[in-house]
């Protein structure tokens, strides 16, 4: 059976396992030990999905080229998965294995030029030391588990087997944290701890294109980050309740702005859980009826998770949304699950470029090329292009030069409570 990985020339999974068996046998006979270092590149999936597999392969080849001289003579290296490398280092105790892993982490972190794009890869590394008479499969599993623990800590870190939570504890502690957040969310729901903040989106001519309604949660004086509570709300189904709350509150606020003389579109985030429900359009209509707002002042931002699977119900809902006069935008475009097919399948009038392309500007020429190309493509489809996460004037300059129609980011305004939005809009229209 072939034991070599064709892309890197390293051992493959089969070769890795055979080498581990050999080293385990030798270690037992010689009363020595050896280390397994399991290295997994962080966010490689994102690179693959954003830039395609050819670029992904280029990244792997490049990393392999760097690792080769460092590993030579010290360890057997194999590539056991798309972005996973396993090093088997004879004679390595725990301390030396950790130093070796740290050296590998530094090598991986060097900036990596792929064409005009500059990436700064990081790795999650798990280390396990062979115990006397331990079977190689268990040893490899321990190293894999340690790597997973490193990944769960946010990546770019090294965990030695035995230092991570004992087997099973990791899942339990994560589950506990989620349960704790879930319980807080329920209490926040009971005590009205949710509200919407609004972040303006500014057109190239300085006018306000729309404001995005963003959910905020505060409980017992402590603000809970949306990065933490949204995933838990999505998992537990609470997102539907929060989504319906956003629909009505956002629509009511659009109406209040309209009554105050500011016809400003309010963009409301809609989750996958809402859109796969046949009840969704009834809830949307209920919000429109209750607020009595013109549908043209409401926009629904579709999150990337929707694009995993656009079912018939979702298609039907999208059609019905468009029929109401409410507009659609595609959020976080260019990362995660979003793909070109979404442009074909979703009748959206607006496309919001993910901040990942914006924060690296103006230095990252390759990201700028992507911005240019997507903007041109979006315009061909008659779409308005918005760039998210814009924080300085240089970024605005290059984005506007690329043809982006509107900008959202801290440079113009942070998300603000509803009570501050109207004064902000008034001040801005006075200044213009």
């Amino acid at each position, binding site marked *: 059976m072939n034991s070599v990985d064709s892309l890197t020339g390293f051992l493959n999974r089969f070769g890795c396992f055979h080498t581990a068996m050999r080293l385990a046998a030798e270690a037992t006979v010689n009363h020595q030990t050896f280390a397994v270092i399991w290295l997994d590149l962080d966010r490689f999936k994102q690179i693959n999905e954003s830039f395609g597999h050819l670029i992904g392969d280029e990244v792997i080849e490049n990393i392999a080229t760097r690792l080769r001289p460092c590993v030579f003579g010290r360890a057997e290296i194999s590539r056991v998965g798309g972005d996973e490398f396993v090093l088997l280092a004879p004679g390595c105790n725990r301390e030396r294995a950790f130093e070796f892993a740290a050296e590998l982490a530094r090598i991986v972190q060097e900036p990596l030029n792929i064409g005009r794009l500059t990436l700064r890869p990081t790795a999650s590394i798990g280390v396990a030391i062979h115990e006397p008479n331990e079977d190689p499969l268990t040893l490899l599993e321990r190293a894999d588990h340690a790597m997973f623990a490193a990944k769960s800590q946010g990546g770019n870190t090294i965990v030695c087997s035995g230092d991570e939570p004992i087997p099973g504890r990791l899942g339990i502690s994560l589950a506990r944290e989620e349960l704790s957040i879930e319980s807080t969310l329920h209490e926040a*729901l*009971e*005590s*009205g701890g949710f*509200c919407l903040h609004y972040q303006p989106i500014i057109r190239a001519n300085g006018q306000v294109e729309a404001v995005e309604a963003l959910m905020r949660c505060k409980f017992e004086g402590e603000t809970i980050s949306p990065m933490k509570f949204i995933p838990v709300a999505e998992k537990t189904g609470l997102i539907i*309740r929060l989504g*319906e*709350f956003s*629909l*009505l*509150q956002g629509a*009511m606020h659009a109406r209040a702005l309209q009554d105050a003389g500011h016809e400003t579109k309010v963009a409301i985030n809609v989750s996958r859980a809402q859109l796969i429900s046949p*009840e969704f*359009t*009834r*809830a949307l*209509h*209920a*919000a429109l*009826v*209750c607020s*009595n707002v013109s549908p043209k002042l409401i926009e629904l931002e579709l999150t990337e998770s929707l694009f995993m699977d656009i079912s018939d119900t979702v298609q039907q809902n999208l059609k*019905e949304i468009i029929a*109401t006069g409410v507009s659609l935008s595609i959020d976080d475009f260019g990362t995660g699950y979003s793909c070109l097919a979404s442009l074909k399948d979703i009748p959206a009038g607006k496309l919001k470029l993910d901040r990942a392309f914006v924060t690296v500007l103006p230095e990252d020429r390759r990201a700028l090329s992507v911005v240019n190309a997507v903007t041109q493509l979006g315009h061909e489809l008659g779409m308005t292009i918005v760039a998210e996460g814009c924080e300085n004037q240089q970024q605005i300059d290059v984005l506007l030069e690329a043809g982006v129609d509107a900008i959202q980011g801290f440079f113009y305004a942070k998300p603000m409570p509803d009570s501050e939005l109207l004064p902000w809009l008034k001040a801005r229209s006075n200044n213009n």
Partner: protein
Amino acid sequence: MNQHTSSPTPVDQMVEKAVLDLGIPPCPAILDRFMVEARKDEPDYHRLASIICSDVSLSASLIKTANSPYFGARQRVRSVNEALVILGLNTASRAVAGIILRKSFPTVPNMERFWDASSRFARLSGWLAQQLDTLALPPEDAYTFGLFRDCGIPVLLRRLPSYESVLQSANKEVELDFTQVEDAVLPTNHAMVGCVLAQSWWLPEELCLAIRHHHNHGVLATTTSPPPLLSRKLIATTQLAEHLVQQQLGLSLTQEWGKLGETCLNLLDLDEERLGALAVEAAPIISANE
């Protein structure tokens, strides 16, 4: 109460805005009764509270105001009585008197039946929850649900000109769920509108879900999926209240008991004999004016 001279307080403004946002006018007869009491030299605030409690628009607006961040209550209120405790009877009564004097409420035609029914259903539901103590259903919750169950109807009457005829068809429908008749011709239904409104007042989830599903026979009969049992008990109790009111007043305005009655009796664990006795005991509650 010298509402004429004082300028509106933040609470007055919040209650007024809540009434306007809600889009459901308060019942004129209730407003009259309120003003008769409020204009007395020494108004009875408990009587004023009981008058407010019988009106959907005033109750909803006071609950919404009490649940606003302005008051920062640790727990949200789930009934108008709790809202009155948070706001203070005096403050709440002044706010209500203010909006009556300023006539700041929307107009909706054909509201009489809604005003009459909602206050009767609320009162009788609260009473039933007390009588059927094995249900362990808080009477305040039953009252709140009875009052708000159909609050989507006046909103739709106000916004959609065709709604009145849809409502008539749905009232006559003997097989399909009430909301199925609405869904066949409208983009939404009164149960969904009511639920979305109740959510925006931060009413408890069980109450919101009960409003959302109160015509859904499939949901009512199930025991394995949401909504929670409390929601199903609320639905059954107010459906029984509606049935008793219609029976006693000789009206048969809806066909809901024929579709949902058996399931409701099962949920409430009632047999025909007990039902008959309840109907007799309920008679004075049903015929009371407030």
